[in-house]
């Protein structure tokens, strides 16, 4: 039953990735975007309440971004502190009227890349950013707690994981993800499409694909 629901949505994502997701949002910011912009402008003006609101509001999202990237809450805690320090130092680079999320996530990515580089230096075992992690066995028990996004997305290369997190979890538009990742919309679509293909293959491999619907129930 659940798989019957899953596969059409994978297909619909593939189609949506090809034709352009959330295109309207490129031109019509949502109320929450405007709130974020207002908070950001007030933060630049030295408003402590706005800074606290931003920290309270955005930290869970940034934390989830790091958890999904690293599958480690300890790392995510450290990186969250670091990203806010860097956001604070670079807050003057936000341009009022521009979308806030791409700006925030571009800085979060910068922290993530720095972290990879530092850990590679420390351990002496450098891993390319796009390396596909070893396939982890997702058990039925894990499937049942699927809201743990880090488990769900762990098999994907980091760049695809990042794009899918921003698009589908954070609800950012293709344009915003392209800005945050310093890449083109076409590249974002391609990564999202490939990521979904991999997830689909993985589900099928685990016996959750077509013809094995019953095993999920």
């Amino acid at each position, binding site marked *: 039953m659940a798989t019957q629901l899953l596969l059409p949505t994978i297909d619909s994502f593939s189609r949506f990735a090809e034709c352009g997701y959330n295109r309207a949002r490129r031109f019509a910011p949502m109320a929450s975007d405007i709130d974020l912009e207002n908070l950001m402008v007030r933060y*630049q003006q030295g408003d402590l309440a706005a*800074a606290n609101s931003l920290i309270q509001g955005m930290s869970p999202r940034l934390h989830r971004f790091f958890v999904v990237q690293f599958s480690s809450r300890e790392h995510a*805690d450290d990186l969250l502190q670091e990203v*806010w320090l860097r956001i*604070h130092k670079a807050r*003057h680079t936000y341009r009022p009227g521009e979308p806030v999320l791409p700006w925030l996530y571009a800085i979060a990515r*910068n922290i993530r890349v720095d972290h990879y580089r530092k850990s590679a230096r420390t351990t002496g075992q450098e891993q390319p950013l796009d390396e596909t992690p070893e396939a982890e066995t997702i058990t039925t028990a894990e499937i049942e707690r699927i809201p743990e*996004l880090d488990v769900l997305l762990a098999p994907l290369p980091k760049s695809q994981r990042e794009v899918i997190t921003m698009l*589908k979890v954070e609800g950012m538009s293709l344009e915003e993800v392209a*800005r945050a990742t310093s890449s083109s919309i076409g590249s974002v679509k391609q990564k999202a499409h490939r990521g979904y293909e991999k997830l689909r293959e993985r589900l099928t491999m685990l016996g959750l694909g077509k013809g094995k619907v019953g095993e999920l129930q």
Partner: protein
Amino acid sequence: MDEILKHGARTQERVSPELLDRIAASVGPSLEPVRPLPPPWAIEVALVAIATAIALAGAAKAGFDGFLGLSVSYRVIIFCGLAVLIFLAASEWVSENIPGRRRRFTAGAAVAVTIAGMLAVFGILFRDYHTTRFLHAGVACLGFGLLHAIPAAFLGWLVLRRGFAVNAVTAGLVGGALAGLAGVTMLELHCPNFQALHILIWHTAVVPVSAAVGALLAWMRDESPIPNRPT
């Protein structure tokens, strides 16, 4: 899959209140009003002006022999082409220094387009394939062009020092390319050697060499343990 991810998105991420308090406490004491960066177009204009001024100043000192030796149509094609490339590089350098800014190209593509554009223009216009003192004259031009790239890069860095490069190496690459274009423009104004290979190889080489030096310096700065982020 869509539903699963949406469900995951709806699940509130757990961040300990103590951590949030620590973050707020670390930000609070230094919370002062800051002046946002000027509009990107203003920074781009400043960078274009710097590159142009350096090229003109260099040629004014060394002589406008190259410019005077070209026909009017050649002058229009070469200098309009260089102006477009300088504007493109300036725009990309600004984008590299503002997080979350819309990108036309990747940094590597911008540098490749710049080099390909110069090769195309020079290759079409200059057809004298004789070579005279190829190495000696070429190295002199390369050195002279790079000499003018240094102040262009330094002044550009001053203009952009309040920016935040999310990728220092690519920012250095594009900045170096822009500085190199200032050097090439100076060479086109000054150098009276119109032999095709001299221009195609030695004049054009200023841009990739300057871009590579920019990327290398940015990488070294990025790798250094001294904090280098804007405050």
